[in-house]
């Protein structure tokens, strides 16, 4: 939220370095983990797109302070984060019961479950941010 309110040049550069390091790790180290080519490619593409969005929006924000990241934007992010957090907590509590159940026999792959949860969190965040931006 602080980053969204005041994106400084220093924050922008450090964030880009961190994102670059993460992407480099995925590209160079992921093959050694043998996670599957399609999954590794998907992960790297997702991270590259995320980095590109941050790089472009951050650059625009630095050129025109307040035109993109301002207090309303930070408020929208706060609302979206809150909603995504509670949806994830709810999903986890339901999952905990489902995974314990012997009658339901719900036995997903741990990797699929982790991916589904992270997708749920991201999707909830995006939908909540979109709705909040229409109402705030």
């Amino acid at each position: 939220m602080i980053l969204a309110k005041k994106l400084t040049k220093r924050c922008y550069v450090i964030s880009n370095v961190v994102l670059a390091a993460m992407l480099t790790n995925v590209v160079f180290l992921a093959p050694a983990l043998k996670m599957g080519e399609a999954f590794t490619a998907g992960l790297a593409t997702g991270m590259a797109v995320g980095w590109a969005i941050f790089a472009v929006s951050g650059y625009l924000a630095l050129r025109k302070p307040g035109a993109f990241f301002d207090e309303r934007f930070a408020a929208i992010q706060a609302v979206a984060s809150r909603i995504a957090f509670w949806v994830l907590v709810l999903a986890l509590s339901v999952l905990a019961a489902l995974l314990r159940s012997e009658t339901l026999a719900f036995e997903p792959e741990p990797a699929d479950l982790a991916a589904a949860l992270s997708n749920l969190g991201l999707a909830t965040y995006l939908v909540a941010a979109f709705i909040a931006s229409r109402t705030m």
Partner: protein
Amino acid sequence: MHNRVREIRSAAGLTQEELGAKAGVSRQTIISIERGRYDPSLSLAFKLAALLGATLEELFHPEEEGT
């Protein structure tokens, strides 16, 4: 929160874009404030009042009970 931002801004001859740029916020934020959908922080409210040459009381006033 009711406000007279649109009225006072128009009288001052400023566009939403210009007011936003001067206040350091986006045009969307000015639109939301004018429509009463978003209540600005105290610091932004003071900034808008100073930019529009008005007092805070002239610019913003709370909704009364039951309205």
